[in-house]
């Protein structure tokens, strides 16, 4: 089934009265907000100026992208923030204009952005709003490919996985010209639902801000597998709230590139008992690159029997590499098992000498050690669609014969 998605230009929101009123309130709120500064804890290490550079300013215009090429399996293309082509059997796709009032009301409530400038701006200026619904189990991942090429581009995706359903989405990003994509994905997982979520950003070399907000119902599971790389600026955010006995596994790699800055912010909230979070993020930072990861796990009083762990590690590959890493736990429950840690280091000279002393040239020895550093995260990547992209970026160990 190939579905051509016609969404009217610059009107993601249908013109029903309730949405219009809500939208006007958001527009007023946006007018009172300013972009975050480094005084804000979660933006302390960010290099936001790239997003507002003159060549990226203004709202996105049409851009002459190459025709979308059908991908293997199920897929959607977003060009300049708007869905332009799709092929899926398992997922139901509906633009906002096709939603009934009850669904719209539910999502308006879910989308409350608080005072976050980029979230509010995304809602006010969304190029398109698309709801993806999964009622049963989908065997193949849904690949969502975003292309941006000019000005500010602001897709908004709503994803609902029904109770007991199981599926996967893989988001990939590519930039074609000076532009800033300020996108958002809202994930709602019903009771016992399971979603694997891949995020691969290495082809987006312009400014990219991407927020994932996830709400996990009781016993729901979210498995995030992310690979971030850029010579521009990227900001990736996850804001996850876990229901009773829900589980989040978040695995990520920042693969720094010269002159690039990647900025990851994680906000995870345990507001119900028995939930588990396991975060592992590793960053490789070459010369003239910057990587930041700020992670906060909040255990509310109701979050008894929480099991939470967060490891944030960075490897600085050269002089002139910079990384800022900050893991935090904020605990208001007394029956929890929590741990967090961070490391910043260089390649181990002893290990490098050991490998070279066996006849391995230094360049190869360094790559072996880099692969080894990434291995604990790569081993958690199960999505073939993510691994295919990662393989194109990294030599990976192959121990299949052992």
């Amino acid at each position, binding site marked *: 089934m190939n579905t051509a998605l016609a969404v009217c230009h610059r009107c993601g929101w249908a013109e029903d009265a309730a949405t219009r009123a809500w939208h006007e309130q958001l527009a007023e709120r946006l007018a009172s907000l300013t972009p975050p500064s480094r005084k804000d804890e979660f933006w302390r290490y960010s290099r936001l100026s790239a997003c507002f550079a003159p060549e990226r300013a203004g709202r996105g215009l049409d851009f002459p992208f190459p025709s979308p090429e059908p991908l293997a399996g199920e897929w959607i293309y977003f060009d300049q923030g708007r869905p332009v082509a799709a092929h899926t059997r398992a997922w139901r796709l509906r633009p906002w204009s096709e939603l009934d009032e009850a669904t719209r009301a539910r999502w308006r409530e879910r989308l409350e952005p608080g005072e976050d400038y980029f979230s509010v701006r995304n809602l006010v200026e969304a190029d398109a709003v698309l709801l993806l619904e999964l009622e049963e189990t989908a065997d193949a991942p849904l690949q969502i490919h975003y292309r941006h090429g000019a000005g500010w581009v602001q897709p908004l995706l709503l994803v609902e996985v029904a109770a007991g359903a199981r599926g996967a989405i893989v988001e990939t990003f590519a930039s074609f010209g000076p532009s800033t994509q300020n996108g958002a994905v809202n994930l709602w997982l019903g009771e016992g639902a399971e979603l694997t979520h891949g995020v691969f950003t290495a082809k987006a070399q312009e400014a990219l801000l991407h927020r994932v907000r996830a709400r996990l119902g009781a016993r729901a599971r979210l498995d995030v597998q992310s690979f971030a790389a850029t010579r521009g600026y990227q900001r990736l955010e996850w804001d996850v709230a876990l229901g009773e006995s829900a589980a989040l596994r978040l695995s990520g790699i920042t693969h720094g590139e010269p002159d690039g800055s990647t900025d990851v912010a994680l906000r995870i909230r345990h507001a119900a008992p028995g939930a588990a979070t396991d975060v592992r993020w590793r960053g490789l930072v070459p010369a003239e690159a910057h990587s930041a990861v700020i992670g906060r796990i909040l255990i509310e009083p109701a979050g008894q029997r929480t099991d939470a762990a967060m490891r944030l590690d960075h490897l600085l590959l050269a002089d002139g590499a910079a990384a800022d890493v900050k893991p935090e736990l904020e605990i208001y429950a007394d029956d929890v098992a929590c741990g967090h840690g961070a490391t910043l280091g260089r390649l181990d000279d002893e290990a490098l*000498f050991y490998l*070279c*002393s*066996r*006849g391995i040239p230094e360049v190869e020895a360094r790559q072996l050690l880099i*692969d*080894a550093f990434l291995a604990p995260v790569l081993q958690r990547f199960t999505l073939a669609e993510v691994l295919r992209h990662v393989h194109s970026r990294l030599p990976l*160990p*192959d*121990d299949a014969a052992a």
Partner: protein
Amino acid sequence: MMLTIRNLTVAVEGRRILDGLDLDIAAGEVHALMGPNGAGKSTLANVLAGREGYEVLEGKALLDDQDLLTMEPEARAQAGLFLSFQHPVEIPGVSNLQFLRTALDCLRKARGEAPLDSAALLRAAREAAQVLGLPADFLKRGVNEGFSGGEKKRNEILQMLLLEPRFVILDEPDSGLDVDALKLVAAGVNRLRRPDRAFLIITHYPRILEYVRPDRVHVLHGGRIARSGAAELAHQIEAGGYAAVLEGSVA
């Protein structure tokens, strides 16, 4: 001569550790280098292997006719040098099999040989692991990761067996080993003894020399070889200590 060292003088942080050391080792020979703590035995091993942090003030070290001291560590290994480390480093995330395959491919490429096919490497590695009493899952585990001291030493010998170097330096291969492990290590060394290969065994104690009989024993003292002799010299050291055998030496 396979290894020729002349007037080797080495400083670490401004302090002379080796001071005019001369040493010759012919192909087919096993030499033992003994000496009290701090004599510079490991310094010699590290300088020959190319570890950073050592300042060569004078002298030369030739492997065959190649000037080791001007070569990168990997080039020394490709020339046939192998150092069995006193304290092998752990490298989590790099499996032993991956490491062995990469090292062997690099060495064979340097020798102008085709890569060993995976099945042959796997077979050889499993056989060597079995001979050395290493656990069955050893090949999948990270290099030396979580290994006991004895397992690390046996892993060094396994690498030596598979990489087939021409000149081997064993830096205290016996430290931390029980007698059974010591016999396994010694058997690995003896298995590789050939007319075109030579060994330098660095050790404090003559115990391993009961299982690997050396052609020559040297005592390092004052930064140079202070005394040399046949295998019996090791027994004299054990019986009388270093002071006794060094009495009247030139150092």
